[in-house]
């Protein structure tokens, strides 16, 4: 093989591999319906319309990775209410997943604490906020699904 052909072949191969992986991923990923949350519980998946949830005022302080505090003053709903609306009652933890596959896990104990775990309303979709964390790593924007285990 000529040296000069190494780079075009490498780039073409990587783009082809990326396209194949993207096609496979996009065709198999569980997607939530527009304006709803996909909740997996007990081996079944339900789509919970966001307009069925009762959003109310949420106030608190989030701390980001730099230690900076940010006040949150938004419309939100406790995660416990979301799970109750989806029929999930007995669980140990919940994996909250965003549209870009980023996810965070919250435990049943955290969810049970009042004023701790919320989904707040944002333009791009609900955001998970966990008040009391030392950094905002579990602040998940664009939440599309909850996996209850």
């Amino acid at each position, binding site marked *: 093989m000529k*040296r000069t052909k*190494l*780079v075009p072949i*490498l*780039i073409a191969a*990587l*783009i082809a*591999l*990326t396209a194949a*992986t*993207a096609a*496979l*991923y*996009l065709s*198999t*990923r569980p997607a939530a319906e527009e304006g709803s949350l996909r909740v997996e519980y007990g081996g079944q998946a339900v789509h919970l319309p966001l307009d069925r949830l009762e959003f109310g005022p949420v106030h608190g302080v989030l701390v*980001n*990775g*730099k230690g900076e505090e940010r006040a949150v003053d938004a419309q939100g709903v406790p995660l416990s209410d979301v799970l109750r609306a989806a029929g999930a009652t007995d669980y140990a933890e919940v994996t909250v997943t965003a*549209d*870009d*596959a*980023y*996810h965070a896990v919250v435990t049943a104990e955290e969810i049970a604490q009042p004023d701790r775990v919320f989904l707040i309303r944002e333009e791009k979709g609900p955001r998970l906020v966990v008040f009391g964390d030392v*950094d905002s*790593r579990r602040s998940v924007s664009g939440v599309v699904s909850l996996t209850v285990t």
Partner: protein
Amino acid sequence: MKLFRLRTLIFLALCCDLGLFSKRLIGPAANLITDLLHIPGGIATSLSLMFLVVAAVLVERPGCAAVMGAVQGGLALAFGMVGSMGALAPVGYLVPGLAIDLALAATRRTALSRRDRAVLANAIASPCAALTANALVFRLWGLPLLLYVCVSAASGAVFGLAGGELARRLAPVLGAELQDKGEAKP
């Protein structure tokens, strides 16, 4: 003995800054693609790393990219540009720098041209950066992780090609330095 000439140091500092800030500049455009693919990123970092690769292939000193990555990590902390990595951001900058150094060292005595080495270095360093970010922040697994790494590698190769071309055009600027060391390559 001087390790680096002043002109080279200025060039390295410029590449550090360009790498750091280009990430922010291309971010919104890159997000259009990554949002479409439903992955958390991978493209902007590849452009950012291109500047480290350009500097490393031109200067050809062992550890050059790793030092630049460490400087970028320090700058990111100082400017508060740590993103979701928080205090661990320097690790996210250092690991791809090390990968660039290793890739360039491994290909140094081969017949590969500077452009080919730049492409390989960027195509290797970008997935390393993606895997580091994944280990520190995203914790993806399965197909999303595979796609994230593939996008990083593919964009790394493409930006590596651009970096190789940029290095070819910049070589005359650092020509004297390279000729002094007898390391000028096509």
